[in-house]
C-alpha cells in the first residue's frame, strides 16, 4: 500500500466522521464532494503504473462524485429550501461515537479478509467503514436529502472495495457502479422534489401515513 494510498484512505474515513458530526446539509454535501474527490485520486494512487483505464476512471469519478452529484444535491436543497438538519434520531454525539464503533468493527473484521496480493487490510477496512457509516447516516437521519448523502457514502464504500478488483473484474463494472450511483441519486432527487412539492418539507418524519402499528 503506497503511502499516498494510505493517506487517502484515512482521509476518506475522516470525511465519514465529518458527515456524521455535521448538522448542516450544505456542509454534509460539500464533505461528500470532498470524499468523491479523494476517491477519484485513489485509483491513481493505488496503481502507480499509468494507464488509460486508470486515468479515465479517475476523471469520471471526479466528474460524477465531486462535480455533478454535489451540484445536483445543492440544487435540490435550494428547491426544498432547507438548510439545517433536524435533531437526528440518536443525537450527534451518539452518532459520532457509533460511527467510531462502526469503524472499529470494520478494522477488526478486515484482517480476517486478506487481499490476494497482500496489500494490507487498510483498503478493506476503509471500504467496510464507509459502508457501515453510510448505513448509520441512512438510518439515523430524518431529512430525505441527508438519507441520500448516507446512500452516497454507502456506494462510496462499495466503490473503494471495487478498486481492489480492477485486475480481475473489468473496469466496466467500476463504471457501472458510477452509473448506478448517478442514476440512483438522480431518481432520488426527483422524488425528493416531488416530496417537497407535496408535503412542503423533506422531513421523512412526515412520510408516516402508511403504517400498520
Amino acid at each position: 500500500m503506497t503511502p499516498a494510498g494510505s493517506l487517502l484512505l484515512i482521509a476518506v474515513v475522516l470525511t465519514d466522521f465529518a458527515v456524521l458530526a455535521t448538522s448542516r446539509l450544505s456542509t454534509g454535501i460539500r464533505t461528500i464532494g470532498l470524499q468523491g474527490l479523494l476517491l477519484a485520486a485513489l485509483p491513481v494512487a493505488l496503481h502507480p503504473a499509468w494507464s488509460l483505464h486508470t486515468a479515465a476512471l479517475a476523471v469520471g469519478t471526479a466528474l460524477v462524485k465531486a462535480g455533478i452529484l454535489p451540484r445536483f444535491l445543492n440544487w435540490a436543497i435550494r428547491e426544498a429550501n432547507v438548510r439545517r438538519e433536524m435533531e437526528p434520531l440518536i443525537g450527534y454525539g451518539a452518532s459520532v461515537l457509533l460511527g467510531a464503533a462502526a469503524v472499529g468493527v470494520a478494522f477488526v473484521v478486515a484482517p480476517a479478509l486478506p487481499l490476494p496480493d497482500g496489500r494490507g487490510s487498510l483498503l478493506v477496512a476503509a471500504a467496510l467503514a464507509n459502508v457501515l457509516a453510510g448505513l448509520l447516516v441512512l438510518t439515523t437521519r430524518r431529512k430525505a436529502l441527508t438519507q441520500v448523502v448516507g446512500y452516497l457514502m454507502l456506494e462510496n464504500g462499495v466503490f473503494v472495495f471495487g478498486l481492489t478488483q480492477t485486475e480481475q473484474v473489468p473496469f466496466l463494472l467500476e463504471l457501472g457502479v458510477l452509473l448506478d450511483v448517478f442514476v440512483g441519486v438522480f431518481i432520488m432527487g426527483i422524488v425528493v422534489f416531488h416530496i417537497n412539492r407535496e408535503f412542503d418539507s423533506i422531513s421523512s418524519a412526515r412520510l408516516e401515513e402508511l403504517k400498520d402499528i
Partner: protein
Amino acid sequence: MTSWLCFGLALVLAPLLPGVAQRTKSWLTGRRGPPVLQLYWDLARLWRKGAVFSSVAGASFRLGPVVFAASGVAAAMLLPFANNPALIRFPGDFVAFAGVLALGRFALVLAALDTGSSFEGMGASREAAFGSLSEPVLVLCFAALALASQELSLSGMLGPALPSWWAAGPALAMVGAGVFLVTLAETGRVPVDDPATHLELTMIHEVMVLDHSGPDFALIHYAAALKLTLLGTLLAGVLVPAGQAAAVVRIAGWLGGLLALAVAIGVVESVMARLRLARVPQLLTSAAVLPGFAIILLLSRAA
C-alpha cells in the same frame, strides 16, 4: 542538566505565548495590538497591588490560585521538554500529569463556588462540564502515544521511542489534532470560549475568576499561561520530529513548536467565532474520535 534548563525556560517563557497569540490576532484583524511582552507587565503590576477578599469567602478562595499555580509547576516537572527526560518520571506518569492539571482546575472551581456569586458558579459549572469532556480526549491521546511508542512514561512517549512521521504519520497527525483541540478547550480559547468577550454570560474561564485580585489574579494568569505552555509542549513533542538531534536543535524545535501553536491559536481566534455552548460537547466528542481512530489504526498496524 538540560532538563533543568528547559524546565526553567518553560517557566520563564510561559507568559510569552498568550502575548504572541494576541499579537497575531491583532495583526490579522488589521491592528497593531499590544506588545508581545504585555503579560509580563500585567503580572508585575498585579503582583504589586493589594488583594481584596470577600467576607463570605473562606479558605478555598484563598487556596485556589495557589493550588492552581502549584499544580502547573508540578505538571511541568512531569513533562519532558524538547525530548529531554522529565524531572520526575515513572511508568504511568501521564496519569499523574492529567490528574495534576485536573487538580488545578478543581481548586479554581472550588474557589469560584466559595464566593457564593452566581456568575462564578455558572463559570465553574461550565468549566467542570467541559473539563470532564476534554479529559477523555487527553487520555485517548496518551493511549495512542503509549501504543505508538510502546512506553508507559511521558518521557518515553515523547522521546526517541515515538515512531517517525514516515512510519505512523496519519496517526500522529490525528493525535496532534486531538491535543490541539484539548488545548483550545483547556485554556479557554475559541471555539470553546472567547477570551476577549466582556459579556459574563458568555464566559467560562474569565467569569470563574472574577472575584480574584492582586497577586492571586497574577498567579491565575501565570498558571493559565503555563498550562498553555505545557499542552503546547505536548503538542510539539508529538508533531515536531526531533529524534536524536543535538540538544540545541531539539530546544529550538520545541520553542518553534510553541511559537507555532501560539500563532495558530491567534489565527483560529481570528477566523472563527465561538461555538454555541450547546455545541461544545459535540466538538469535544468529535475531538475524541480523532485519537480514537489513531488508536484503531495503530492497533491494526500492530496486528
